[in-house]
């Protein structure tokens, strides 16, 4: 017998046994991470020590504050407030020339639903879009600087609550309206509501090169209220869905009169088809807008009956289903895109409403899901396994369920009355799981009392295992929806780069100058730690002297190309203040209406000698 055989087989057996006992067969490192994170206490899970950063950015809509609130997750610390539709003296938003022009005559807005720009259905971290229900506007924020670059006024519509949602590659952002109004917002009697009023939806495009928003076309939908919406994904990417209420077309006491019909509709439309119709000239010109009338220019738009007055409608990450949340009906309805496409192909319709075909409910409905005693379902998010998380406004809880079976998997109470919730990248084609934040409408007794009214509340829920609320954070009025993005997707800059083509900028302090031309005074000044220089050659370089009635333009460049060394520029008693971020050139324009002596000072603490960073604005009285 050969001696080596037993030796070799012995070694082999020993090696195999050792491998089985000690080797790590886990498929990836994530499992270990999750396992260890589940060993952490709740406090440890949310504690982010100095030197470490949060894993996610949370962009929470600021509702009628008109602002956007940026939070870190999991710490739930507020990092920044970005003004979008409202004036903000802290940043000079609505005071400096660029933001003043964008704001027009408006001083406030009602920021409802934020949406990130997307590439292939996933957040690309480049831009944030938002809509203003208060004054019918849309805005785009550049995430390199976290500042608003453009605001678009949307005509023929009033209150784009049902927005913003972007298509898979940010081709369009759709803005359906909450309030129906006559076209051009002309005066019309409410007795003629059904004939003269329209619920116009706008297709907005974003020109990235010029950071400009534009309206591509509009659709004169029936005079109903459009509530929430979502764009299709993957196989349904050319489609979008939105919920309606008040299909009763009530004109008063909507609380009662818009809640009468057992069924309202989901509007299902193919934006590629609408795009083609516009291209083929199938539209009418309404005050310069290309308007599609669904009853005249047929095709591309369909109605899906749904339990009455639904709120949210959300497309599953795989793009196969859309889920409507009942609000007044205690159930979620899962619809199949595939079945809808087939029904449309077979003209499987149950008549028309306002000239739009209604798809047979039974042909498109996949299942109705009715978790026991779960009341007021509003809005659904998804995790990495495709599981659904629906907020229950009335029963004040989050319900986790499986869209494929309808089975309830878990539920957790929240305090109190969640409107929307947001999961980590929870409305993309690839949600991250792990975190969900409930955006609660009522904080009540959650925090130290600040009088009869309280802030709203955001609660962080760990969804990596059994759902558990692990942190609660007060938030100003009022997050309606939020977006949660992996932190490393956002590439914010530290300082504004020099722009040698910018004629308003001054990058050498010796070149600061004041140019007078009749009653026009143009200042090309600089701010640096810790002084202003408006006229480098003057006896007092930090003084601006004008005549009463002069039109004054101040271009100010912050010469501190140093992270977070922001300067402010305020003129006492002139109701003016703006900021100049590191390296930025900002402009302020005004008329020197009041003669007198007005100190100038830096409002944004910049250095040990910030207090000395002052000057004078002298206005000579008229002779």
């Amino acid at each position, binding site marked *: 017998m050969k001696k080596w055989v037993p030796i070799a087989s012995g070694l082999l057996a020993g090696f195999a046994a050792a491998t089985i006992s000690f080797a790590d067969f886990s498929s990836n490192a994530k499992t270990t991470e999750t396992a260890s994170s589940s060993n952490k206490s709740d406090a440890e899970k949310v504690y982010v020590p100095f030197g470490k950063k949060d894993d996610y950015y949370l962009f929470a809509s600021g509702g009628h504050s008109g602002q956007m609130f940026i939070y870190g997750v999991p710490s739930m610390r507020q990092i920044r407030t970005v003004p979008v539709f409202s004036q903000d003296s802290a940043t000079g938003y609505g005071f400096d020339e660029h933001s003043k022009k964008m704001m027009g005559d408006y001083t406030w807005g009602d920021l409802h639903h934020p949406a990130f720009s997307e590439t292939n259905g996933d957040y690309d971290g480049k831009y944030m879009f938002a809509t203003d229900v208060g004054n019918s506007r849309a805005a785009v924020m550049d995430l390199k600087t976290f500042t608003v670059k453009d605001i678009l006024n949307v005509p023929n519509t009033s209150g784009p609550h049902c927005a913003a949602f972007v298509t898979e590659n940010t081709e369009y952002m759709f803005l359906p309206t909450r309030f129906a109004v006559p076209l051009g917002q002309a005066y019309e009697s409410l007795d003629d509501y059904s004939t003269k009023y329209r619920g116009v939806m706008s297709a907005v495009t974003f020109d990235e090169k010029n950071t400009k928003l534009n309206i591509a076309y509009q659709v004169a939908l029936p005079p109903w209220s459009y509530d929430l919406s979502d764009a299709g994904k993957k196989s349904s990417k050319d489609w979008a869905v939105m919920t309606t209420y008040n299909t009763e077309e009530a004109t008063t006491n909507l609380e009662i009169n818009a809640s009468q019909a057992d069924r309202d509709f989901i509007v299902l439309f193919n934006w590629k088809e609408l795009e083609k119709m516009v291209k083929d000239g199938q539209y009418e010109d309404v005050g310069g807008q290309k308007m599609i009338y669904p009853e005249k220019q047929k095709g591309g738009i369909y109605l899906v009956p749904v339990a009455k007055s639904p709120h949210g409608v959300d497309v599953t990450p795989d793009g196969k289903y859309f889920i409507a949340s009942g609000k007044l009906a205690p159930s979620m309805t899962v619809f199949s895109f595939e079945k809808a496409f087939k029904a449309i192909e077979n003209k499987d319709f149950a008549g028309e409403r306002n000239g739009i075909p209604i798809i047979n409910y039974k042909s498109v409905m996949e299942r109705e899901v009715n978790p026991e005693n779960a009341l007021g379902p509003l809005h659904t998010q998804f995790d990495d396994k495709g599981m659904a998380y629906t907020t229950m406004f009335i029963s004040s809880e989050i319900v986790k369920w499986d869209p494929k079976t309808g089975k309830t998997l878990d539920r957790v109470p929240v305090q109190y009355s969640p409107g929307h919730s947001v999961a980590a990248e929870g409305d993309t084609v690839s949600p991250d799981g792990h975190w969900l934040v409930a955006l609660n409408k009522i904080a009540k007794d959650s925090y130290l009392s600040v009088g009869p009214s309280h802030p709203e509340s955001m609660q962080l829920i760990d969804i990596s295992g059994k759902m558990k609320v692990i942190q609660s954070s007060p938030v100003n009025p009022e997050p309606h929806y939020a977006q949660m993005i992996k932190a490393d997707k956002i590439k914010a800059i530290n300082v504004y780069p020099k722009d040698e083509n910018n004629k308003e900028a001054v990058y050498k302090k010796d070149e600061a100058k004041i140019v007078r031309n009749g009653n026009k005074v143009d200042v090309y000044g600089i701010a*640096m*730690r810790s002084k202003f220089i408006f006229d480098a050659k003057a006896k007092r370089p930090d003084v601006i002297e004008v005549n009463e009635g002069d039109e004054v333009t101040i271009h100010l460049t912050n*010469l*501190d*190309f*140093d992270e977070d060394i922001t300067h402010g520029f305020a003129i006492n008693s002139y109701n003016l203040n703006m900021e100049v971020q590191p390296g930025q050139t900002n402009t302020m324009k005004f008329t020197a209406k009041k003669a007198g002596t007005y100190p100038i000072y830096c409002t944004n603490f910049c250095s*040990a*000698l910030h207090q*000395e960073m002052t000057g004078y604005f002298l206005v000579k009285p008229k002779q």
Partner: protein
Amino acid sequence: MLVPIPFYLIITIKGVVNLNVSKKGNKLSLISALLIGASAALIVVSMFFPWWRMLFIAPQYPEGLNIIVYPNKLEGQIDIINGLNHYIGMANFSEENFPELGYLIYIVGGLAALTLITALLRNKKVLYGLIGIFMIGGAAGIWDLYSALKRYGSNLDPKAPIHMDPFVPPIIGENTVANFITHSILGTGVYFVIAAFILLLIPLWKDRKVK
């Protein structure tokens, strides 16, 4: 490094003269010549690396601010450092204030050329001369840097908002100025030059006269 250009010319001429009168006993071996050639290459390489740098660290600047000195330019967060230095009345660092940066690169290039010539001549006396130039050049460089540091640290504007006693930051090592701790550090380029110098010394030992 303020080594006068004419000095180089004299040395070069001396080298050529040496070539004519070279005797066998002064001839360097091929390996030595190659080492000197490598030394010339290292000097060329050194020109592309920083020679010296000063790192400023403060509570507000944990990541540090840098003045990085190349033979022909300054890099780093010079504007920010200047902005902060004005509080103690220190003059601005800028390439205009260091005329050396205009010609130093040619001196270093010239040194590399001289080294290469030395390698080609393979003459021990020329090598001695070259080593001498290296030592003079090095000493001049250290003196120049020291005088610059002294100039900046001593001539503080008396009207500056924060009054400080004059100081001279070290060429190598740590110093504290107000909230800043400065670290003076030799750059990669200098290490290449030191390596080049060592390569010049090896032939002296290798081709020593064996009695």
